């Protein structure tokens, strides 16, 4: 009987050591996963007060707000530079890998026209690590032909991306990171982006109007960056920008300065083309 008790005690002690070891190992695994950015799928509860709604995880601190243009190579060996700051459109940078299983769904979504979900004012650019870390032929085989794909380890470093999939939304006019994060599905990324855009528009309205106090009586902070994303807000434009944009929209519709349709009460005059050139020249 005593021998049985001793054996059981030894077994229990061994099991206890084993459990402790497993817990430590589990803790280490979680710690490493956290370092790699895992656990980013839990959406935060509310948009921050800067009008920048969080995407999959919290936005970068202000020190990371400046967005760098991309410089690298294409999967087919071209040398490329892609502008994301100082441009009129927003850019959604999709940091992916050709090998990770969680990235496969995004490549597939892009091949199925996923970029169209972003709207006309947001450009999708896929980014992988450079040829020293990724196989260009593997990336070429998986990257859709109509999506700009840049292989650049430097971009991963610049944006502090631990690994794919990870998404960064850059506001082109201000050249700042408007939001970043991740989600397991492309549809969720799009939804998070749309929410961020809606919140940014809300902030813009706030800037244009009177002070808005929240339920606690605190006025809303309006310091968020301008946002030119899928819902690019014309309220952001100044007078000259609005005039330029109106000219561009009219030109796209085939209406140029001097077009008779702009002067419904006036009798038609000479050739529109000649008038247009003359007026443009005079500007």
């Amino acid at each position, binding site marked *: 009987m005593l021998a049985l008790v001793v054996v059981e005690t030894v077994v229990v002690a061994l099991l206890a050591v084993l459990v402790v070891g497993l817990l430590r190992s589990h803790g280490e695994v979680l710690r490493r996963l956290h370092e790699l950015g895992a656990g980013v799928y839990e959406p935060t509860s509310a948009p921050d007060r800067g009008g920048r709604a969080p995407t999959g995880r919290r936005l970068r601190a202000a020190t990371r707000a400046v967005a760098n243009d991309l410089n690298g190579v294409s999967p087919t060996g071209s040398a*490329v530079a892609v502008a994301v700051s100082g441009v009129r459109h927003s850019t959604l940078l999709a940091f992916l890998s050709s090998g990770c299983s969680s990235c496969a769904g995004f490549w597939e979504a892009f091949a199925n026209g996923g970029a169209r979900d972003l709207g006309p004012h947001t450009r999708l650019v896929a980014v992988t690590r450079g040829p020293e870390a990724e196989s260009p032929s593997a990336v070429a085989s998986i990257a859709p032909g109509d999506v700009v794909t840049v292989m650049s380890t430097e971009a991963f470093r610049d944006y502090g991306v631990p690994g794919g999939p990870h998404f960064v939304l850059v506001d082109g006019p201000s050249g700042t990171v408007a939001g970043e994060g991740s989600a397991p599905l492309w549809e969720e990324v799009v939804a998070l982006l749309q929410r961020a855009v809606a919140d940014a528009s809300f902030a813009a309205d706030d800037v244009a109007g009177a002070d808005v106090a929240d339920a606690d009586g605190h006025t809303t902070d309006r310091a968020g960056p301008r946002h030119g994303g899928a819902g690019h807000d014309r309220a952001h434009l100044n007078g000259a920008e609005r005039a330029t944009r109106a000219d561009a929209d009219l030109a796209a519709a085939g209406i140029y300065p001097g077009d008779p349709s702009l002067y419904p009460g006036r009798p038609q005059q000479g050739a529109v083309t000649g008038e247009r050139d003359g007026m443009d020249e005079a500007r």
Partner: protein
Amino acid sequence: MTATVAAFGLSVEVPAGWEAEIYRREPDAVRGEVTMPILHAANVPLARNRGDYGGGTVETLGQRGVFVALLEHDVEAAHTALFSERRVPWPLSGGEFRPNALQRNLPGQAGCQSFFVTAKRALCLYVVIGSFGLRHVLASEANRLLSAVRVSATFPVAPRRGGGSR
């Protein structure tokens, strides 16, 4: 921070707001095609799929857009009359742009094209601007990029032969 794009003995320091690509199209092996280096740059997004003369991108220029293409030709072409000019054609002036100098005529746009030899390489410069009326302003914008273009003679101009696409 200015990015430098370099390949095949061509390089450009890309100004802010511009983007650029230097590539050599994959030749069609069946047709025995030979391809040469091409530099594209624009102050609008370069479309992923575009023609060597900017088809796919020039349609999106808008009034203030500029598209620049520098296309290399066979070295033998350097000895033809077409390539008799021995200096780079930039800086450009607004007067060099003509609406009828476009590969594809688009309303309001204008273009200019020059053939020249530099660093023993035969090159064609083709520039499209979004507005003929703004040609003087847009020529300056084009010069902002062109002034940072470098052509090296050290590149072994070996035509690429094979099959596939860019």
